[in-house]
C-alpha cells in the first residue's frame, strides 16, 4: 500500500523548489558577496598567436582601487600546470597549460594578465593601463593546414607537431563491399564550431582561509568533486582542505565541467591575497574563452547492396581542437564517438573510420551537450537519407529494413562498442504513428504542387549514458565513475540527503528526491536533497554524460533501500514484531498481517535518537546510510536510443527555413519524472536546431573570432522554434535496480540531423543539397543554384 505513489518514481511533479526560481530567490555564483572581496578581470591576447615580449604593470598597479596585477611568471611557482591527456588513448598528446600564458599566447582570448580591483569596472579600467609588448606570429588556423608538413608547430616540444590524436578503425572487407555495392555514395559534410552560450556565464568565488589553511570555492559546476581534486592537486593542497560548493547554476550543458585557466588563476589569487576573489566572465570573454565544440570536416561514405541492405559505412574526418587539449577530459571524445558509433543503428558488414585531430590557434575545445554523438548521428543519418533518396526508397522503410532488430541485443558493433539493449524499431514505429507520417507526405505533395517546398527529415540516434570508468578513469583523469548518496532521518522523521550530483536546471534534485520519497513512501516535502557540496556529499562524479539520473539515482535508491531496511529492523526491535511483518507506509510502521499501526516514523526516530535505551537488542539505530553505485556492467556506458523527425518549409525566395513541427521518441529506460524528462528533450532539441541552422563561431584567417556577441552569434529564440511532440519507449537497463538511463543529451543528438535531413528533403525537387552547417540562407540559395 503505497500512499505517496503519486509523487514518487514516474510522477510528473513540478520541480522541487520551483517557487524559488520564479520569485528570484535562487542564488547563483555572482550573487555571492563576501567581506573584502575583490573582483578580477583578465587582459587577454588580442592575437591568435604571439610571443609575449614584455609586460609592464606598473601604471596599472598604481591606479586607485587596484589591488593586484599579476602575470604568468608571478603565478608559475605556486601551481602545477594542466595536461589534458587521457593516457589510455594511444597517441593522444597535449602540452602543459599554465593559468596565465607564459612566453607565448596561443589563442585570441587566452588570459595573459590578471587584474584585481575593488570593482569589476575599476579592474577593466586598469586593464587599459597594462602595457604588453607583443610579437605577432603567423597563426595556424585551418586544421588541414595545421597538419601539413611545413606547418608551424603550435607546441614545438611535441614530436607529432600539430597532430593531437588520430583514431582508426577498419573492420571487414570495406573496399570489397564498396566495389560490390549497387550504390555507394559519399558526402563531404562540415560543421562550424559552436559553443554552449549558457545564460549565466562561467565564474568562481574563492576564499582562502589562512587560519585553517583551507580553500572554499563557490562555482556553477556540474562536477564539484572533480574540481576539488583538480584544485587540490594543482595548488598542492590536501583534498580535505578544499571545499567546492556547487551553486545553483544558470545552465551548463557540459560547459562548466572543465578546468579553465582564468578561473584557476582567480582561485590562486585568493590564496595569495588571503581575501575572497570573484571572477565572473562577461559575455565578450565567454565567447572567446568558453570551450567550443563540434567543428568537423568529414567525408562519409555508405555502400548499399542491390536488395537495399547497407553493407558498409566509412568516414575520413578532421577536427581542430584549438590550442590545448582541455583538462582533465581531453578534447578528443567527439572523435571517439564518431569512430565508435558510425552507423550504430544499422546492421552492416564493413567499417572504415579514420579521424585526425589537430591543434590550431583557436579557443580550446571541450564538451558540449552530446559531445560527438550529434556529429556521428549527422554523418550516419545524412548518408542514410541521401542513399534512400537515390534509391527512391522511402527513408522510413529503408531504416526498418536495415536497423539491427530490437530483439538482437546485447550486441557488439564492428567498432567494438557494446550495446546493452536498443529499441530503434519500437521508437520508429511510435514516431511514425505520432506524426501521422502518411498524412505529412500527402501534405508535402500538395504543397509542392502549390510551389511550396516542405521537407520531412528523420534521424535515428544513439546516445551514451551511465558511463563506466572506461571513459575517463582508466585514462587517469580525476573523474569519479561512481556516485554516492547519504540518506539521514531527522528526529521528526523527515529525511535529509546529500549527493555529489548537481542540478544545473535539469531537475536532478527533484528526480533524486522522488526516488528517495518513493522508496520510503514519504511525501516529497518530507525529503530534502542537498546537492553539490563536497563538504557534505560523498565523493561522486557529478553530472555529465547523462549520468545524473542513472548513476546518482541508483545510489540514492540503494541508500534509501538500506535505510528502509534499518528502519524496519529498528521497528521490529522497538515494537517487538517480526521484521518481515512490518511495512513502512505513509509515514507509519504497520504490521501488514494484522493491519495494526505500530507507530509513526517520527515516533521511531524520536526513540532512536533520544531513547536508544528502548532498543533492547542489536546495535543502536543507524538511521543514516551512505551507498555508492557505479555502472560496471558496460564499461563504455549504457547506450540509449531514439528517433526524431522534423517538418520544415523552405522559402526558396529567401533561403529561410520555417520549422513547422518536431517529434522525438526516446528510450531512456525507466522515467523518473516524465515532465522533466520531456523538458530535457525539448530543450536539447532546440539546441540541436541551433547548430543545424543558426549557430557558429566565425573566425577569420588570422584566428580572430568575429562574432563574439549575442547579436552576431545566433542562438534559437522563441519566435522561430516549433512545438515539439515527445514520446517514450521504455527499455529499462538491467545494470541497476532503478533501470533508468540518461536523457539529458538525447534531444540534441538527433535534432541536428533531423533538421538538416528535412531541409534536404525539401530541396530535393530542386536538386539541392546542403552539407555544410549551419544551414544558412546563403547555403540554401547556393544549393538550389540561384546564387553562386
Amino acid at each position, binding site marked *: 500500500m503505497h500512499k505517496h505513489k503519486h509523487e514518487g518514481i514516474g510522477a510528473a511533479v513540478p520541480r522541487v523548489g520551483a517557487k524559488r526560481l520564479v520569485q528570484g530567490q535562487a542564488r547563483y555564483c555572482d550573487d555571492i558577496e563576501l567581506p573584502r572581496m575583490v573582483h578580477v578581470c583578465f587582459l587577454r591576447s588580442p592575437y591568435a598567436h604571439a610571443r609575449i615580449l614584455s609586460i609592464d604593470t606598473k601604471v596599472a598597479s598604481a591606479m586607485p582601487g587596484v589591488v593586484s596585477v599579476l602575470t604568468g611568471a608571478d603565478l608559475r611557482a605556486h601551481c602545477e600546470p594542466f595536461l589534458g591527456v587521457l593516457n589510455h588513448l594511444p597517441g593522444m598528446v597535449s602540452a602543459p597549460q599554465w593559468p596565465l600564458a607564459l612566453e607565448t599566447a596561443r589563442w585570441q582570448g587566452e588570459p595573459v594578465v590578471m587584474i584585481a580591483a575593488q*570593482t*569589476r*569596472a575599476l579592474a*577593466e*579600467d586598469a586593464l*587599459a593601463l597594462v602595457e604588453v609588448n607583443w610579437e605577432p606570429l603567423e597563426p595556424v588556423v585551418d586544421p588541414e593546414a595545421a597538419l601539413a608538413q611545413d606547418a608551424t608547430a603550435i607546441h614545438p616540444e611535441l614530436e607529432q607537431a600539430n597532430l593531437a590524436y588520430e583514431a582508426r578503425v577498419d573492420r571487414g572487407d570495406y573496399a570489397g563491399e564498396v566495389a560490390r555495392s549497387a550504390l555507394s555514395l559519399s558526402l563531404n559534410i562540415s560543421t562550424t564550431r559552436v559553443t554552449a552560450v549558457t545564460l549565466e556565464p562561467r565564474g568562481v568565488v574563492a576564499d582562502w582561509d589562512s587560519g585553517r589553511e583551507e580553500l572554499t570555492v563557490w562555482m556553477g559546476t556540474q562536477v564539484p568533486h572533480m574540481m576539488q581534486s583538480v584544485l587540490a592537486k594543482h595548488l598542492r593542497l590536501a583534498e580535505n582542505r578544499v571545499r567546492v560548493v556547487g551553486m545553483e547554476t544558470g545552465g551548463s550543458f557540459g560547459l562548466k565541467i572543465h578546468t579553465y585557466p582564468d578561473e584557476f588563476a582567480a582561485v590562486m589569487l585568493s590564496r595569495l591575497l588571503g581575501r575572497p576573489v570573484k571572477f565572473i566572465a*562577461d*559575455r*565578450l570573454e565567454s565567447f572567446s574563452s568558453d570551450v567550443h565544440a563540434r567543428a568537423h570536416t568529414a567525408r562519409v561514405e555508405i555502400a548499399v547492396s542491390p536488395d537495399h541492405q547497407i553493407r558498409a559505412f566509412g568516414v575520413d574526418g578532421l577536427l581542430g581542437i584549438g590550442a590545448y587539449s582541455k583538462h582533465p577530459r581531453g578534447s578528443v571524445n567527439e572523435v571517439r564517438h564518431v569512430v565508435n558509433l558510425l552507423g550504430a543503428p544499422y546492421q552492416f558488414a564493413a567499417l572504415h573510420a579514420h579521424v585526425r585531430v589537430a591543434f590550431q590557434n583557436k579557443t580550446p575545445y571541450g564538451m558540449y551537450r552530446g559531445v560527438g554523438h550529434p556529429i556521428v548521428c549527422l554523418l550516419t543519418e545524412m548518408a542514410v537519407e541521401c542513399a534512400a533518396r537515390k534509391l527512391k526508397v522511402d527513408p522510413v522503410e529503408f531504416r526498418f529494413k536495415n536497423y539491427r532488430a530490437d530483439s538482437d541485443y546485447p550486441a557488439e558493433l564492428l567498432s567494438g562498442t557494446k550495446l546493452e539493449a536498443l529499441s530503434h524499431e519500437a521508437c520508429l514505429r511510435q514516431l511514425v504513428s505520432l506524426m501521422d507520417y502518411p498524412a505529412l507526405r500527402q501534405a508535402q505533395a500538395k504543397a509542392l504542387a502549390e510551389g511550396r517546398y516542405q521537407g520531412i527529415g528523420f534521424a535515428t540516434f544513439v546516445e551514451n549514458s551511465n558511463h563506466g570508468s572506461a571513459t575517463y578513469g582508466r585514462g587517469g583523469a580525476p573523474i569519479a565513475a561512481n556516485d554516492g548518496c547519504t540518506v539521514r532521518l531527522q528526529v521528526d522523521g523527515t529525511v535529509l540527503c546529500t549527493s555529489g550530483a548537481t542540478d544545473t536546471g535539469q531537475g536532478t534534485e527533484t528526480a533524486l528526491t522522488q526516488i528517495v520519497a518513493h522508496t520510503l513512501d514519504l511525501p516529497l516535502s518530507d525529503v530534502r536533497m542537498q546537492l553539490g557540496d563536497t563538504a557534505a556529499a560523498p565523493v561522486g562524479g557529478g553530472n555529465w554524460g547523462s549520468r545524473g539520473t542513472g548513476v546518482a539515482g541508483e545510489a540514492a535508491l540503494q541508500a534509501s533501500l538500506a535505510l528502509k531496511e534499518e528502519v524496519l529492523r529498528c521497528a521490529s526491535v522497538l515494537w517487538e514484531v517480526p521484521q518481515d511483518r512490518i511495512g513502512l507506509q505513509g509515514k507509519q510502521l504497520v504490521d501488514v498481517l494484522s493491519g495494526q499501526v505500530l507507530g509513526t516514523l517520527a515516533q521511531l526516530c524520536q526513540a532512536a535518537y533520544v531513547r536508544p535505551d528502548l532498543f533492547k537488542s542489536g546495535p543502536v539505530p543507524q538511521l543514516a546510510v551512505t551507498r555508492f553505485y557505479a555502472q560496471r556492467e558496460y564499461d563504455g556506458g549504457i547506450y540509449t536510443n531514439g528517433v526524431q523527425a522534423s517538418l520544415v518549409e523552405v522559402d526558396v*525566395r*529567401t*533561403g*529561410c527555413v520555417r520549422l513547422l513541427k518536431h517529434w522525438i521518441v526516446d528510450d531512456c529506460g525507466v522515467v523518473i519524472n516524465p515532465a522533466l524528462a520531456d523538458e530535457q528533450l525539448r530543450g536539447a532539441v532546440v539546441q540541436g536546431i541551433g547548430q543545424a*541552422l*543558426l549557430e557558429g563561431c*566565425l573566425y577569420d584567417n588570422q584566428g580572430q573570432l*568575429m*562574432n563574439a*556577441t549575442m*547579436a*552576431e552569434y*545566433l542562438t534559437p*529564440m522563441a*519566435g*522561430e522554434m516549433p512545438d515539439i511532440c515527445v514520446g517514450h519507449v521504455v527499455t529499462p537497463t538491467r545494470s541497476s535496480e532503478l533501470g533508468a538511463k540518461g536523457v539529458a543529451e538525447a534531444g540534441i543528438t538527433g535534432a541536428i540531423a533531423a533538421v538538416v535531413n528535412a531541409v534536404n528533403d525539401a530541396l530535393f525537387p530542386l536538386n539541392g543539397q546542403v552539407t555544410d552547417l549551419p544551414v*544558412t*540562407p*546563403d547555403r540554401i*540559395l547556393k544549393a538550389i543554384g*540561384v*546564387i*553562386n
Partner: protein
Amino acid sequence: MKAAPFKYVLAQSLEHCLELLSEHGDDARLLAGGQSLLPSLALRLSAPALLIDINRVSDISAPPQVSGGVVRLSALTRHADLITSPVVQAHLPLLHRAAPWIAHPGIRNRGTIGGSLALGDPASELPACAVAAGATFILQSKSGGLRRVPAPSFYQGMFRNACAVDEMIVAIEFARMDALQTGFKEVARRRGDYAMVGLAGQARRSGQRLTNVGLSFFSVGDCPVLASKICQAIEAAENESQAVAMALDVYQRDMQASADLWCSSQAKKYIGRSVLEDVIHDLYQ
C-alpha cells in the same frame, strides 16, 4: 563589459542641451533611449567624455501631433509609442507597420525615433522609413538655430550624416499618409534581428498606376538611400505586373548589396528581389 568612466549631465531644457553641445561638441554624446549607445559603451567601442541625458527635456517629448497635412514626431517619441499612438496608426501607417520589427518590446519601450534616426544604422528600420517617406528632420543648434533637412539628403555615408557637431534632431515631420499606400517588408532569420534585407515604401495610387513612389532599402548599404531609379521605373509602369518587371530590371542592374557576417552580397541581392516584389504588391493593395 563595464563602461569606461564618463561625466554625466541631465539636460534641464533644450537650451541647456544645445549649450552643452556647443561647448563639448564631439566629446559628448546625447543619451536618449540608450539602447544603442549603452551597448557600445559596454563593449568599450566608444568612450565619450560626457553623456548628455536628454530624457527630461520637455521640448522634445511632445506626443505625436497632426496639424494640417503634417504629422510631427518629437525626437523622444519611443518606438513603443509608434505602435500604440492612434495618431501614428491613423496617419503614419508605414511607421506603425515598421515599429513592431524594431528589436524587442523592452528595447522599444526606451528607444527613440530621434536616436534611431541620428544613429542611422544602415540595418535599422526607421531611417529607411524616413527616407522612403521623404520626411523632414528638424535640427537645432545654438550656433545655427533651427534647420530643416530632408531625410534623403541627411544620410551621407556609414554613420555619417548632415548633423553638425553641435546640432541635434529635435523633431521629424512627415506628410500624412492617410491617402497613401504603404509597404514594408523585412527578412530576418530571427524576429527582432537586424534584417538581412528590408524595404520601406510609400506611394500614391490612382487606378493601376503609382505616383510619388518612395522606396528605401535597409541592411544593404552604408546608409539608407532613396532607390530613385526603381521608383521612377514603377511610376512609369501601367500596372502592377509591369511595375514589378521594370523595377526588378533596374534592381538587377543597379543593386549592390554589402555582405554582412552571415549573409553574402549575392544572397542579399537575391533575397531583395522578393522583398521588392512583395512591397510593390503592398503598394498596389
